[in-house]
């Protein structure tokens, strides 16, 4: 929830709460005020009625207006205190009950006890109260709306710098070498935040550049001597006839140095993925990569007599680095082919949500805790580097894909779930 929405909601709920209680309290205050006014009027009437009755000898006093009624009843019993109360009286003309204020009192006129009730209609005052409250409601609603609008508008102005900062942080990419410049704000808190952020990005950027430089230097420094070793060994091979023993020693040295350089470049690749040094991202078609790869691995597949079953949905695209997409798919498929058995199966399933590659192989499940570790090797192929799945996992982590291993029905199955997260990368 946005801060503005949250504060607005808080403001709204609190003001509605206050308003509700306020209006109830207001109503009762008005009511009490009106009642006491009416009571006073009725007190005045009481004396005028008593006077009238004394003069007219118990004749019934006529109400001076239609809002007032007087009832005089001769009674036997005793003196009682004056009583004020509300009462409902049925109005025949309007066919509804109407609210009246009533004053009941006893009076002795010419030795006869009378119980006299004065009724005063509250209809007019009531509708007045309702009108006042309605007007207030409208006023308060208008006030709240005005407040919200002003709040929203001024928040935009005040928080503009903040949202700009957030936006810049979201889109900041160390690899673009862009300067991290933030919009200035006249709010001190935001200025503090921006200053802190600038210092932090600067630090991170320096660390990152150092690290990047280090990986690149390491790669360069190691690859060059390796290049010399390889080329000298290759030259040595051309130097003429050698004994079988010499060739064998040379062949082993050559193999080892090639493996070393593969390790090196693979480890550098892992570091680069970890450092997110593959910023470029575009639509890639896993289908195209798969087709190309299967063609490339055709020899291997045919030699092993592997049955390839394709359940590839057409037009599936991913938004990611094309180079990494290729590495990801190549590693998975290559493993599935390499660890396959003669006459085994290779099932490739692709839909917009996932890529699943299953293959026959040894009849025991692999330990999926160790599977993604670096240098984990199955005993069957000691020549492999043991880095393929570590790379797969790193790439998946980078893009928020979920990779999992299952052993089911004699098939080893690697599944990569593409999330909707990938659009954000």
């Amino acid at each position: 929830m946005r801060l503005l929405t949250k504060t607005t909601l808080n403001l709204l709920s609190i003001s509605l709460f206050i308003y509700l209680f306020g209006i109830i309290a207001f109503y009762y205050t008005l009511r009490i005020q009106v009642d006491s006014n009416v009571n006073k009027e009725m007190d005045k009437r009481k004396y005028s009625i008593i006077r009238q009755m004394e003069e007219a000898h118990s004749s019934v006093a006529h109400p001076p207006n239609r809002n007032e009624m007087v009832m005089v009843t001769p009674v036997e019993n005793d003196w009682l205190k004056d009583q004020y109360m509300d009462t409902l009286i049925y109005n025949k003309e309007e066919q509804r009950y109407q609210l009246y204020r009533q004053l009941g009192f006893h009076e002795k006129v010419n030795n006869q006890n009378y119980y006299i009730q004065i009724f005063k209609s509250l209809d007019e005052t009531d509708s007045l109260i309702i009108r006042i409250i309605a007007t207030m409601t409208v006023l308060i609603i208008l006030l709240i709306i005005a407040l919200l609008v002003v709040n929203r508008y001024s928040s935009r102005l005040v928080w503009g710098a903040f949202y700009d900062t957030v936006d810049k942080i979201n889109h900041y990419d160390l690899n673009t070498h862009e300067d991290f410049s933030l919009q200035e704000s006249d709010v001190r808190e935001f200025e503090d935040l921006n200053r802190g952020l600038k210092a932090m990005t600067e630090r991170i950027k320096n660390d990152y550049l150092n690290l990047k430089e280090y990986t690149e230097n390491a790669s360069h420094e190691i690859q060059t001597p390796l290049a010399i070793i390889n080329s000298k060994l290759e030259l040595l091979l051309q130097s003429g006839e050698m004994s079988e023993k010499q060739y064998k020693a040379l062949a082993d040295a050559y193999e080892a140095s090639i493996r070393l350089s593969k390790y090196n470049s693979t480890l550098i690749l892992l570091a680069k993925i970890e450092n997110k040094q593959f910023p470029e991202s575009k639509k890639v078609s896993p289908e195209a990569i798969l087709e190309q790869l299967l063609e490339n691995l055709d020899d291997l597949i045919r030699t092993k007599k592997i049955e390839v079953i394709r359940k590839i949905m057409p037009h599936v695209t991913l938004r990611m680095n094309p180079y990494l997409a290729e590495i990801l798919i190549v590693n998975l498929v290559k493993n599935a082919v390499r660890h396959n058995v003669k006459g085994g199966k290779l099932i490739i399933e692709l839909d917009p949500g996932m890529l699943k590659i299953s293959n026959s192989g040894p009849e025991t499940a692999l330990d999926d805790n160790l599977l993604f570790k670096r240098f984990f090797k199955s005993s069957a192929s000691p020549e492999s580097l043991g880095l393929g799945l570590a790379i797969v996992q790193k790439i998946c982590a980078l893009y928020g894909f979920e990779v999992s291993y299952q052993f089911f029905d004699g098939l080893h199955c690697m599944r990569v779930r593409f999330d909707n997260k990938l659009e954000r990368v």
Partner: protein
Amino acid sequence: MKILIIEDEVKLSEAIVEYLDGEGHLCEVAYNYEDSVEKIELYPYDCLVVDINLPDGSGLDLIRLVKKKSITGGIIVVSARNSLDNRIEGLEIGADHYLTKPFHLAELNAHLKSIHRRISFNGSNELVLNEIKLIPDEHRAFVHDQELVLTKKEYELLLFFISNKNKVITKAGLAEHLWGDHMDSADSYDFIYTHIKNLRRELLKKGCRDYIRTIYGLGYKFDVI
């Protein structure tokens, strides 16, 4: 073909020159940016082998310089940096190939040969070696003017052999040429064996001499001497 090898690592440079020796090329070497600029300004070269990381400059700048002079020769970039950016940039500004260190000398040689064919025959080329004739543009191969029935990989294998005739080619070098980085070398050796078996059978069937020699445990040699 006149080739300038720009590589700051003297020993690597020596190895390249020695490997190319006897291929009919005239190789010159430069170990830094400044010397390279001087040499490029003074002499016309058919081909440049450029290392990107030079002690006093960038090989990419050298490529730009050469391209500005609109020399038609080929350029092969050699770099320890296997970063995609560099590769793309190198190819964009006019390099023909990009090799990542460490590379196989046979691979470099094959690329040089293809550049050589391009500049000397203006593309419409034929590659003739005794009774074997290759038309690289069409991916076709003939022995005594009979067309060979070869798969794509077998054809590539033959072209690679002919480009590196009389050299010992390691299995690892062959594997990388045929499959790139996609296959670990250990996996692919069996297929190399199969492909070579098929290629040899096809060549012999069309009456070609048996040029392919197996070097124990190491690789092969296309022996035409």
